[in-house]
């Protein structure tokens, strides 16, 4: 073979579309958001409470059978800044960056829930800070993740 003088590459744009089923538990959570409620699953065997709700308990690996409602407030356990541009998978539109992404422990939950924060400056946030969930206006809620707008700093502990 003669020496390669001009290597060639081709640009390829695959179109991959997915139609995910939220399933019984995911659908329950989204329906809860439509009603302005945060729903979790609770395990009868080990009493673990997980949000979002799911079938498999992370404690005993049994089926989580009960749904419970959590107060829409909690404690900010971690946060960081998202500055990487990406297309929102639900809208196909780029989400404005940068923004803060946080992990919130709802009172009564055994795990933490990840979501957007209203605050755009991480310097104004602290671990352990109380936060509360802010929903869309009731008439605008449709049963999707975006019904939950963000967590904003809450009052008191």
């Amino acid at each position, binding site marked *: 073979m003669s020496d390669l003088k001009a290597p060639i590459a081709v640009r*390829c744009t695959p179109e*991959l579309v997915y139609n*995910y089923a939220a399933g*019984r*538990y995911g659908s329950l959570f989204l329906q809860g958001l439509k009603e302005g409620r945060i729903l979790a699953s609770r395990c009868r065997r080990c009493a673990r409470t997980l949000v979002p709700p*799911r079938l*498999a*308990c992370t404690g*005993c690996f049994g*089926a989580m059978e009960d749904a419970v409602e959590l107060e829409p407030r909690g404690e900010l356990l971690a946060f960081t800044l998202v500055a990487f541009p990406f297309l929102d998978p639900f809208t196909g539109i780029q989400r404005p960056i940068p923004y803060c992404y946080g992990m919130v422990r709802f009172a009564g939950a055994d795990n933490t829930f990840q979501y957007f924060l209203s605050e755009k400056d991480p310097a104004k946030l602290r671990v352990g800070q109380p936060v509360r969930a802010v929903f869309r206006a009731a008439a605008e809620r449709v049963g999707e993740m975006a019904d939950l707008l963000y967590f904003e700093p809450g009052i008191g502990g």
Partner: protein
Amino acid sequence: MQPVAILGAAQTRHVARRDDACYSELAFEVVAALLAETGFTHPRIDTVITVSSDFSDGRTISDMAVQDAVGAAGKSSSKVSMDGAFALAYAAARLTCGRYRTCLVVAHAKASEGRPREISRAAFDPFFERPLGPTDHVALGLQARRFLARGTVTREAVALAAARALAYANGNPNAHWRGALSSREIQLGPPVADPLHRFEVAPDSDGACALLLADLDTARAHAAARGVPVIRLDAVACATDRHGLGDRDLGLPGVLPQVARAAYAQAGITDPVREIDVAEVYDASAVQTLLWREGVGLPVDLLAGPAWNPSGGALCAQPGFATGLVRVAEVWRRLAAGEGRTGLAHGMTGFVGQAHCVGILRRA
């Protein structure tokens, strides 16, 4: 190989779409059923192998999302991203190394969530093939032409194999497709992958399957305690062929004859026609229903030798990479029920059978 045993098998019903369960919940469903059936609990599972396709799940490292559902936290778990039958070889290796006594194998697929044709197209060479529009179905059509051109079977025989699969599936509560159609009706049906028509090409299904394997001592103790037979895995063999469609003769069974010979040698089988009672193969098309018979050394006549895809085969339910594991589960179920002593289970990966895997199961 040192024999191991299969203690139990569970599968979901295979359907076009499961809206009530996400993919990890499908995996949970079969694991819960398998544990209930065998009386095992999570602490008695030593190691876990999950089977999934990232492309199909639309999720990178798709296996990690099922770890909670299969109870793998804190255990050594690994993944097979090929047809589930190949996980048999992996599970057997893990058990025979002596470190683990039990191994859970779980495969899931939700064909309804992605676009199987688009996903299959992405496996083709990006320069020379992908712009042409090849898919798994296109490959099946090309294979069918090559197979029919050999003149060993008629076009009618292919349609008959499809009709027979649908009829068998009437007795399979988990089948996605079942029905009573004549070979003529099938040939008049909508074309899917010329020259193949609807029902001659396997459906795209949502479903899952799980097996519990163990070393022979554990299996014997389990069998004695529960009054069930020991079903051994006496052999498992696999091999991969050249990749390109143009680098193989698609009308021939490829590396399958060599894989079958290796499995027969391990299991001490000298006359497969007489010695095998039941066989389940991954037939993505009705051509493969016939071609894989030739591959495992059986006569073309579907009535000679073992019961051949008595579940209806992949032609009646094709839950992605779970399809080959379902073949193993079907053979296991029949041997456990006393419908024969020796069974053959087959899986494949890659277009029109680039890689094949054959397992031999025996009721002790």
